[in-house]
């Protein structure tokens, strides 16, 4: 019982950090049709920048915000200079983001070396919480709550604001949105920036769990894909639910069948693709 409860919480925490990557992934694809392979590289760069700031004595939460802002700036530059003109050309855009993912990965290796680094959680949350026989790291709970708040905030943005309405219109029918005099390109920038910020800040927030090491981005990428396929491409709610599912499946998979950990992740993915190709909460196209 303790084993399951412990792993369930671990899985939810892991899923919560996956959501920080998947949210941008699904929003960017839903609106712009760009598969941003670099999204997990943004996470890794965010983690390293955060680590640097922590070593310089910057408080954890501020480091997360600053790392998010730095990654957002880099992401916007990449979008402005390269991706923007290819957004109607899905394959070229995908290859470009793959190229940037590899470059960022190498850059991280050159800048921060190959040794895995562990990242301490913020001191106020470094303690453990005792619940009967269970002992939870307080930071896991914090991350679960924080990610749920981010999901709720994004949902409000999407459902309750004019920007959200413009984004939904762009997803429904981009050409018609332009035909109403709406400069949808502005929404593209906002969404790409938001996705990069969440991944970069998520890198700091998630690093007490994942650590920071070269190749972390490559390890996370298949999980991010699995999240999107299960939840439904373009759906925020889907990304949240999918993140938690993949977090749980991957954690239990590693605990129960360590030699089959990828297999256990892609069983639900294959099932979804066979039975409900649009994903749990995605729309049919």
């Amino acid at each position, binding site marked *: 019982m303790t084993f399951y409860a412990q792993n369930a919480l671990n899985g939810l925490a892991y899923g919560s950090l996956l959501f920080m990557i998947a949210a941008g992934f699904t929003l960017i694809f839903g609106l712009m049709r760009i598969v941003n392979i670099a999204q997990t590289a943004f996470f890794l760069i965010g983690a390293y920048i955060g680590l640097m700031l922590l070593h310089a004595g910057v408080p954890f939460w501020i480091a997360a915000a600053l790392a998010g802002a730095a990654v957002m700036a880099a992401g916007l530059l990449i979008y402005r200079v390269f991706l923007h003109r290819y957004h109607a050309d899905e394959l070229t855009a995908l290859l470009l983001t793959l190229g940037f993912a590899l470059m960022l990965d190498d850059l991280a290796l050159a800048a921060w070396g190959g040794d895995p680094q562990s990242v301490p959680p913020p001191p106020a949350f470094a303690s453990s919480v005792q619940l009967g026989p269970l002992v939870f790291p307080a930071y896991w709970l914090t991350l679960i709550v924080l990610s749920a708040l981010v999901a709720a905030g994004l949902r409000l943005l999407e459902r309750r604001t004019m920007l959200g309405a413009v984004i939904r219109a762009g997803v429904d029918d981009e050409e018609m*949105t332009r035909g109403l*005099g709406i400069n949808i390109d502005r929404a593209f920038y906002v969404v790409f920036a938001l996705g990069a910020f969440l991944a970069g800040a998520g890198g700091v927030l998630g690093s007490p769990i994942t650590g920071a090491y070269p190749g972390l981005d490559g390890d996370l990428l298949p999980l991010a894909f699995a999240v999107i396929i299960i939840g439904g491409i373009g759906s925020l709610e889907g990304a949240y639910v999918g993140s938690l599912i993949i977090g749980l499946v991957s954690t239990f998979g590693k605990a129960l069948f360590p030699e089959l950990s990828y297999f256990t992740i892609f069983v639900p993915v294959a099932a979804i693709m066979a039975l409900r190709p649009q994903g749990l909460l995605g729309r049919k196209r």
Partner: protein
Amino acid sequence: MTAALLDVTEVHTYYGDSHVLRGVSLAAAAGAVTALLGRNGMGKTTLIRSVIGFTPPRRGTVRVRGEEVQRLSSHEIARRGVGLVPQGRRIFPSLTVEEQLRIASRPGGAWSLDGVYDLFPRLRERRRHFGGQLSGGEQQMLAIGRALMTNPAVLLMDEPSEGLAPLVVRGLRDTIARLRDTGLAVLLVEQNLPLALDVADTCYILSRGRVVHHGPAADLARDERIRALHLGV
């Protein structure tokens, strides 16, 4: 003749290698309905797409209120005063009625949310419903209301009567007449010939990407020969 709000001159438009519009010229004047007729596949919708910039012409000019717009992007053309009621209506399924009107809103003209709701009280009742939940007639009201929210000078209407019940078409006819009376230049693409001839002042007939007839709607209503030749009725 009053100056045209929309002036299309010698426009050539292609889909890839396919030469669809072969030098089309037409004008739409303020406070008038200009009908664009022709059989299917003759280039009527392509002309609408050329004006709004979805499929920009390769040659020729499009002027809105005297200003050349054919090199601008669609959202800039729309902001110069072109409202679009597209073929198939293209309502956004995941936006509510009111959201669709609000995102299109460009203040500074006669039309506002209340004005559109007064024109179509049905939309006010349905304002919290999503686009996908509307009937065909309601969708058409929303498509027109959405275009009006941009406060256009020129209103492009591409087959607005398509798929509507006869009673609803009669309401549509009255709406078009009212909009004309507000001073809009309405360019109306229609398959429904009685509707077009009833409401239009001037008619153009397109055939194989060229204007083959141009004249007052009343003349076309009398001239069975031209109707038979170009419209197959």
